[in-house]
């Protein structure tokens, strides 16, 4: 199953419990107070929704949500049949 940028941003807002309008590509993880536990919850949700296992340890150092979204989209969409 393929994902879109907007779906990933929705998921981040839901799991980190942040107002959706604040969840933009330019926002930083630090500004939004996204914790390590929020990240793990998010990775669980990704696995449930898209069937892709992403370990926290695999995630590169990231500052903005845009970087995170790009990384997650690449992992999800490379796993999905085209």
């Amino acid at each position: 199953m393929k994902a879109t940028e907007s779906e990933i941003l929705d998921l981040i807002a839901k799991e980190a419990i942040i107002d959706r309008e604040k969840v933009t590509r330019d926002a930083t993880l630090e500004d939004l107070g996204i914790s390590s536990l929020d990240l793990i919850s998010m990775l669980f949700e990704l696995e449930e929704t898209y069937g892709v296992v992403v370990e926290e340890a695999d995630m590169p150092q990231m500052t903005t949500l845009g970087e995170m979204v790009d990384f997650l989209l690449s992992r999800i969409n490379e796993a999905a049949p085209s």
Partner: protein
Amino acid sequence: MSRRIAITGLGAVSALGIGARVNWEAARDGRSGIVAHRFEGGPHAPEPVTLPAALTPEGHAQALEDRFSRKVSGGLDRFAVLGLCAAHEALEQAGLVDHPALSHRTGIVLGHGQGGQETLERSYERFFGLKSQRMHPGTVPKIMVSGGVSAVAMQFGVHGPTFATSSACASSAHAIVQGAGLIQTGLADIAIVGGSEAIATPGSMAGWQAIQALATETCRPFSRDRDGMVMGDGGAVLILEDMDHARARGAEILGEYLGAGMTSDAFHITQPSLDGASGAIRQAATAAGLLEADEVLISAHGTGTPLNDRNEAAAIQAVFGERTPRHPVIATKSAHGHLIGGSAALQAVIALQALKTGLAPPVLNYNEPDPECVVALVLGEARSIQARHALVNAFAFGGLNVSLAFAA
């Protein structure tokens, strides 16, 4: 008892619907929430089973989540969401949402038999079934039995004494007694009390089947052909408040908590005992001065299991003797199922409205008299009553008994 305890708010959610009044009207009108449900346990479970159950409708559960801030409901098991929903309704009715008294002079005591069973089963399916090394970080906070009271405290800003009680089917009855105690001892002016449960999950239901407690078709309290209980889920909350405090702020008084009896059988982990049950009822009736009353509404534990109902009828007889036929007995689990930890609170919410309206709701699904269950059952349709007082019974597995006394 030095301080009188008023009831200033009621809340309920169950298979009968959302709202204390909705639940009351359904019980009064003889509507049942019991239907056949299919329980599917996932890829590693045995074949699904179909069993009667009384569950809060799924659409309603989602509506509840949407009503509360995501900061709280994002990480809650269903049992906690149901408790939160009932607490919110009760606090709104009491006019206490955002009230300054909530902050430091209010306590919370909610009872739950098991806590986050749905979360437990999903997490363990990943771990044991799918052999996933990773456990969801929400697992522990969602499973813990105190997750419900913490959610209520966070949602409404309550900083006073807050804890959960757990005594299987008597959990919310013990919670009500403990909440009243906080007020009586001066530790709080208000107590948010009650309970909730959501354990109608595939693994849990298999356990209840194993113990041979479940009915094959429906819940038939005190009927000779009864063959077990029907699992329910939901929650109910009462706002207990120091009478002077309630009057001073002009709150509507919906009823009064008069006292309770509590005993332990110290006998058997599943079988009831006559002395334990009758002891609790006698203590409560004595505390409230009801032993010689003309008419007392008795909300029976009435699970529909062969053993409980026979023992409970004998216990009522043992306490009231020849006065037994005066006291109308209701058994609303025949409508809302057995909410386990939440049952006593929901029965209290319904009994208080029965006293207020002068109507006793009928025992449903009753087919034939049992010579071992001779009490004055309300059958057929709701019946007019004169009673100004009610006893609410809760007799738990493990022999933990509570009887609560209320006045209209």
